[in-house]
């Protein structure tokens, strides 16, 4: 029942937010729901419930390995949102709060979905529920970003539906009943019709890859992340992409069972490396630090895809990276949001000298940058090291070399832009704009906590998490 | 001896019946417009009149200006001879005559165009440019249609290709060929045979400088071409081989008449297309033939 509560609680809260009369107090629903959600996921993480094999929704090993990260990230964003929405009191927040809560509920459903159709519905619904979040700022640029997000994301989601149908037909053609639960599909294994499985794999990878933001389907990402508020960016980059990634993992398990695992692994490696390279090149050129975060997210999605392509050890490292990426990305987006508010601009031409204007946020931003570019001792360093080791263990030296080169370029690009913003003299414009911004505890503590968690994950990975990731890998890819 | 007689007989049929078709079309148009219209045999009178007249030649032209219409006329008539006439079959038939058919029509167009260019008038050059650029698209449709027929009948000889009905894609093919017929014969939505507005003319521009017997040859050749496409369209759709000779002849004559009435209706009911829309319609004709080809291919596979 607790797994259903994970979905139901946010929805109830969303309805409550719609009915809540006062704009000032409504945002408190967010952290309240977040606390309940985190408590539930932690409970389920430590004491995993028995999974009924044919259930459509269950807290199965993969959900256990990933969903708590989403939950923690949401709580941090929710805590930040209270202060943020107070700053933005000129905008009505009824729909915003309700949609944030609905996104949490749908994410919980998506992570726990064990049925291809249900997974698709949850992903599509998340896409739609995120639309009001993206145009919260209500500017022309925000609408432009939303339009692109909807068009590209909608096409991706449509292709993934077609892919789901193809997988269903593969089962039907192989003599199965067309049962779309992952358990049934995996059980059918080699009985699935191979051409249809490959068609389905391509379509599903393109579809869910669009949602993840893998290159070349990433074009919506810089616009959407650039125009959305920081919390929305953090949730999109850390949580919504994660549900698409788990979808790819679940589908890959089916493709593996059907005997096409080698092809699937290779496509994941290629598309992952391509995303990393594209992102690194754009990182070297961009002057806008919110778009920079989007390209960084594309890069990390590439890392996840690469890990997923490298077999058992790689998948374990990718699950690790889901956690470190979610927490560190959350911190970096939230601190970037502070700098955006205080600096009054988004490019290095408009913003500089933030170390003087907002000393705490600027320092957090620099440390976050170091963390997200995989400097030790933060979490991403260790998870990416695991992926590197998996690549070497797999005998993929060239892959490892490209991976390291892309990481280096990304580091150069990110550090160039971050230091340009933090150092130097404050621009004259920044002194006038947004004088309301104060570095209160509400906007400092959430990114700091996320950063601390990322550090903790790196230096002392909790054994319960390691055990959860191992269980997830075993459940997805059972050793023959 | 009988072969020669046969050919002469067919030639007579084509030569004598062809000018009837424009008359029918004009009559239909007149009826719809509520006029009495010119007599059905008007074109015969025109041709007779032109034949008696002398030729006025520009000082700038070469002998090709007169030779062009003559060669074009012969080419169209030869193409007509390749086409089977209902139950009578063809006079000349050999493997690959469908290709010759396409080429003869192209030769006819080439000669008319050259004769027009020969006057060195920029105005006629413009007409040639338009005519030829549309012809490229129309030819693609004709060739695809013939390819479809060839695939269905497993033959590249018009005599056998046109005997069975077109099968699955008959409707598509008929629509495509009807559009080609309109384009090739400069009928309304592509060109207006009655236009006197020089900037919008296509075919009429090319023949402005001709007079007397060469003009008669051009006009008569145009009517033969119209009949030729009407017969091709009818035989593509009709299952000629399955009917008794009498029935087949009647069906063929009837459908040619229907096509003529159809052309008249189109000319009365539709306006001429803007130039930039014309390639679109010809592409549609090509696509219709292409899908007929697809249907034939799928039909052969299943």
């Amino acid at each position, binding site marked *: 029942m607790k797994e259903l509560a994970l979905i139901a609680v946010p929805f109830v809260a969303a309805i409550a937010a719609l009915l809540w009369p006062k704009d000032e107090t409504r945002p408190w629903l967010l952290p309240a729901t977040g606390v309940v959600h985190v408590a539930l996921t932690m409970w389920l993480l430590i004491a995993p419930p028995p999974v009924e094999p044919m259930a459509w929704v269950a807290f199965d090993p993969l959900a256990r390995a990933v969903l708590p990260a989403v939950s923690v990230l949401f709580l941090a964003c929710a805590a930040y949102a209270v202060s943020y929405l107070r700053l933005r009191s000129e905008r009505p927040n009824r729909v915003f709060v309700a949609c944030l809560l609905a996104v949490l509920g749908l994410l919980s459903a998506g992570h726990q979905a064990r049925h291809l*159709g*249900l997974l698709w*519905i949850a992903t*599509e*619904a998340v896409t*739609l529920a995120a*639309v009001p979040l993206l*145009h919260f700022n209500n500017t*022309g*640029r925000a*609408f*432009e*970003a*939303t*339009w*692109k997000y*909807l*068009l590209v994301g*909608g*096409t991706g989601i*449509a292709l993934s*539906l*077609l892919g789901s*149908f*193809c997988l*269903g*037909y593969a089962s*039907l*053609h192989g003599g199965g*009943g*067309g*049962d*779309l639960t992952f358990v049934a599909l995996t059980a059918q294994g080699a009985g699935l*019709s191979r*051409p*249809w499985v490959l*068609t389905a794999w391509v379509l599903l990878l393109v579809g869910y890859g669009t949602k993840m933001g893998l290159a070349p389907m990433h074009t919506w990402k*810089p*616009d959407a992340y*650039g*125009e959305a508020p920081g919390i929305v960016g953090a949730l999109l980059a850390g949580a919504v992409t994660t549900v698409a990634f788990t979808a790819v993992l679940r589908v890959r398990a089916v493709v593996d069972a059907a005997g096409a695992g080698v092809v699937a692994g290779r496509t994941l490696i290629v598309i992952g490396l391509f995303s990393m390279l594209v992102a690194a090149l*754009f990182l070297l*050129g*961009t002057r806008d630090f919110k*778009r920079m975060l989007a390209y960084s997210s594309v890069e990390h999605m590439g890392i996840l895809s690469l890990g997923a392509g490298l077999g058992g050890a790689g998948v374990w490292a990718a699950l690790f990276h889901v956690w470190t990426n979610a927490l560190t990305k959350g911190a970096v987006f939230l601190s970037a949001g502070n700098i955006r508010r205080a600096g009054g601009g988004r490019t290095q031409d408009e913003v500089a000298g933030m170390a003087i204007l907002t000393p705490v946020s600027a320092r957090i931003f620099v440390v976050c940058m170091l963390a997200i570019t995989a400097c030790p001792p933060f979490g991403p360093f260790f998870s990416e090291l695991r992926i590197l080791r998996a690549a070497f263990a797999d005998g993929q030296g060239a892959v490892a070399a490209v991976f390291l080169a892309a990481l280096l370029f990304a580091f150069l690009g990110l550090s160039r832009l971050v230091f340009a913003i933090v150092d130097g003299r404050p621009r004259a414009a920044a002194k006038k704009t947004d004088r309301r911004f104060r570095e209160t505890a509400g906007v400092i503590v959430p990114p700091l906590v996320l950063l601390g968690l990322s550090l903790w994950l790196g230096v002392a990975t909790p054994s319960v998490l390691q055990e959860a990731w191992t269980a997830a890998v075993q459940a997805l890819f059972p050793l023959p | 001896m009988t072969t020669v007689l046969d050919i002469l007989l067919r030639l007579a049929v084509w030569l004598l019946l062809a000018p009837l078709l424009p008359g029918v079309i004009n009559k239909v148009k007149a009826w719809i417009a509520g006029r009495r219209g010119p007599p059905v045999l008007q074109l015969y009178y025109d041709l007779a009149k032109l034949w008696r007249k002398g030729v006025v030649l520009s000082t700038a032209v070469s002998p090709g200006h007169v030779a062009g219409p003559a060669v074009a006329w012969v080419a169209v008539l030869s193409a007509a001879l390749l086409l089977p006439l209902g139950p009578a079959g063809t006079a000349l038939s050999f493997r690959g005559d469908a290709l010759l058919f396409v080429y003869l029509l192209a030769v006819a167009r080439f000669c008319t165009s050259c004769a027009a260019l020969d006057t060195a008038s920029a105005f006629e050059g413009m007409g040639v440019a338009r005519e030829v650029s549309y012809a490229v698209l129309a030819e693609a449709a004709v060739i695809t249609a013939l390819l479809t027929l060839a695939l269905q009948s497993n033959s590249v000889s018009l005599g056998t290709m046109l005997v069975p009905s077109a099968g699955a894609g008959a409707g598509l093919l008929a629509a495509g060929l009807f559009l080609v017929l309109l384009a090739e014969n400069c009928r309304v939505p592509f060109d207006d045979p009655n236009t006197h507005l020089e900037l919008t003319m296509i075919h009429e521009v090319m023949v402005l400088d001709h007079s007397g017997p060469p003009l008669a040859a051009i006009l008569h050749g145009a009517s033969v071409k119209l009949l030729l496409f009407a017969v091709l369209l009818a035989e593509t759709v009709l299952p000629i081989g399955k009917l008794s000779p009498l029935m087949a002849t009647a069906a063929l004559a009837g459908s040619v008449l229907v096509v003529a009435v159809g052309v008249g209706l189109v000319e009365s009911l539709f306006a001429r297309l803007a130039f930039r*829309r014309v*390639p*679109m319609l010809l*592409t*549609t004709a090509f*696509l219709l033939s*292409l*899908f007929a080809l*697809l249907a034939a291919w*799928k039909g052969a*596979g*299943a």
Partner: protein
Amino acid sequence: MTGALNLLVALAMGLNLLALGSSRLPSLIRAAAVQGMVLGVLPLLLEHEFHGLVWVVAAATIAIKGFVIPGLLRRALRTAHIDREVEPLLGFIPSLLLGAMAAIGAVAFAGALPLRPEHAGTLLVPGAFATLVGGLLLLMGRSKAIAQVCGYLILENGIYLFGLLLIHATPLIVEAGILLDLTVGVFVIGIIVDRIQREFDTLDTRKLTSLRE
């Protein structure tokens, strides 16, 4: 039954080309709407025994794809005073030829995929892929938001066509959810169209170019 089915699917494929060749927004909307209605009839042909739910799904599909969504689009066209020219980024003739190539490619591709015996003679798979590509071409090759929405509708139609292969296997609840999502999706798109209009005084997405590197 297969004959009637193939005829309708072929009609849907023809409507793709009609949509690709449409130079006016109303005719584009009409093509998408008629295609939606044609597809709505198909479940009735496929289902062997007629129970109420099939009728409900067919009626709902026809109503939504054929009337509600096109109605919304026409209203947007009317109230926003949008110019009726389509203004293609990719010319009409190239789009038509690409659409035709897609149709032929879809037939060839479907021939390479193994099909269950009851689907072997039908045009469902090629029709689905051809419609899908037609929708994608419209999405990418047209600059106006309404034309892009029509492209998205046609893309969805292609997927719906493919979904008919699974009509006996998938529980209807999933189909209902899919239909629901489609409506919500287009509804949201409609709202955005409205907002873009108010913000930019145009529905030309080519003007949406302030976000770029």
